[in-house]
């Protein structure tokens, strides 16, 4: 259990660190709000409308496919680093893995997921 205790200590310490810094900042910083200062920060642009707007569901499917290939990349890196150790069998296994994902991409493509509606 002692390993978990360290994790818990880190959690408590980071929470304390945050709380103390914020508290000290609020003590020493000058406080002079204006309307411009309190508006949401959008990289210098004037904010337009509400923050809670509707997004097209298209984003969700694109994001889903992105996550898929993101995960593929995560598997590819350690595999590439260990390619000499895993040998030919590992190479073929990775080809199968990429092949399966490729089938998924072809499927999404043919189902017109990639074209913007």
């Amino acid at each position: 259990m002692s390993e978990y205790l360290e994790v818990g200590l880190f959690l408590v310490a980071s929470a304390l660190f945050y709380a103390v810094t914020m508290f000290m900042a609020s003590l020493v910083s000058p406080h002079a709000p204006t309307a411009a200062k309190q508006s949401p920060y959008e990289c210098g642009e004037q904010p337009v409308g509400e923050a809670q707007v509707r997004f097209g569901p298209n984003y969700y499917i694109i994001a889903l496919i992105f996550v898929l290939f993101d995960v593929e990349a995560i598997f590819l890196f350690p595999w590439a680093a260990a390619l000499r150790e895993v040998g030919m069998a590992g190479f073929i296994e990775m080809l199968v893995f990429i092949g399966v994902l490729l089938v998924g991409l072809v499927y999404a493509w043919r189902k017109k997921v990639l074209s913007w509606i």
Partner: protein
Amino acid sequence: MAVALHFLPELIVLAAALLVALLDLWLERSRQVLHWIALAGIALGLASLAPLALRGPAGAEALPVWAELWRTDGFALFFKALFLVSTGLVLLADRRFVEERRLPAGELYAMLLFATLGMIMMASSHNLMVIYIGLELVGITGYALSGLDKSDPRSSEAALKYFLLGAVSSSILLFGLSLVYGLTGSLTLEGIGRVFTVPEGGVGLAGMAVLLLLVGFGFKIAAVPFHMWVPDTYQGSPTPVTAFLSVGPKAAGFAALLSLFVTGLPQATSFWRPLLAGVAVLTMTLGNLAALSQTNLKRLMGYSSISHTGYVLAGLAVATPYGFRAMLFYLAAYAFVNLAAFAIIIAVGTQRQAHELADYRGLGQQNTFMAVALTIFFLSLIGIPPTAGFFGKLYLFGAAIEQGYVGLALVMVLNGVLSVPYYYAVIKEMFMGSPEPSAPPVTWPWGVEAAVIAGLVVALGLGLGSDPLLRAATAVVNAL
């Protein structure tokens, strides 16, 4: 090649699933080709079990791949055969239904195959991670399958409810698995089994882990009180999917539960045994009581499947080789009989949309063979001799009494009586009523007939001579 033999069924089913998914993109019109490929994949997968099965339960185990990660022992082969046959029966029965309802055939078949892949993976895996991957593969395809009929809002409702509760239960299960890993430092069932104990008197972290596992698996196998998704999901899903859900994922959950609890948590038996017995009693009784007032046959079958979960859980709760043997026998008999009954429900539902009991009025006059077959399946589900279901229940009673669980056996007997009225309500409608003049006649595609005949052979064959399956189950359990 010797190693590849142990993965052959998985590879074949995966290849068939990918092929169906790809061909569907260019062959949208020819659903029959996809259907044949899916069936061929299942048949080849079954055939690929033969070389290992012929070595016998001990011989199959003599070649463990990565000793504590992946086993192809008799236990795994038994369940793989059961899963492949279940999916095969669903595929046989659903063709006409898919055409009539304009369901996306490619997606249905591909996802049935992917779910089967997850199920047969779960049968072999002796590692928490691999078990979880299999479980999620079955779960995610199940959510998508139950929402496949996009023209029916009930189907979407079914998918949403199944998905939400399934996702919650998966995270609970994962929490339990992580506690087990944290306590034992091992992901393999054998490694966990060597050290995992629940200390006497206190629940503690180990007890919490067992409880969380029980809740997580309880959702997957639909045990009370984790059954809330079942009625709506079973009623709303396209009927072939309901048939699949009532057998495949449930049996896969039992396979994982059995190997996890028996191989991984044997030293905690005295802790989980009363818990499982309690859940089993609740599940049987509540499933049967709720089924009594149903008028929709799919919903009724949902509650009936809950009560059967209770019986199988009782076998696990007894926690002796006799109990496990009875479990395997009961599961196999239930799978065939329930799927064959669903084949008839699918055929009736193809022409008559509602699945109300009134839709079955007078079926005995219109088509005597199918009505008699459905009656025999229901008798087997009740557990009346000489059917397979009777022997399944008999072995379960025997195992419970042998271990001194007379109360549990008594509850099982009482529940057998309790289940009679709702099955008989259907039988009464079929034979005593006369058909509605407006009801369209029911046609019986060859696939439905084949599934029904397979169910009849098992229901009556096992009832008259239950030795072969019992011997197989005994051999499997002895090798466990």
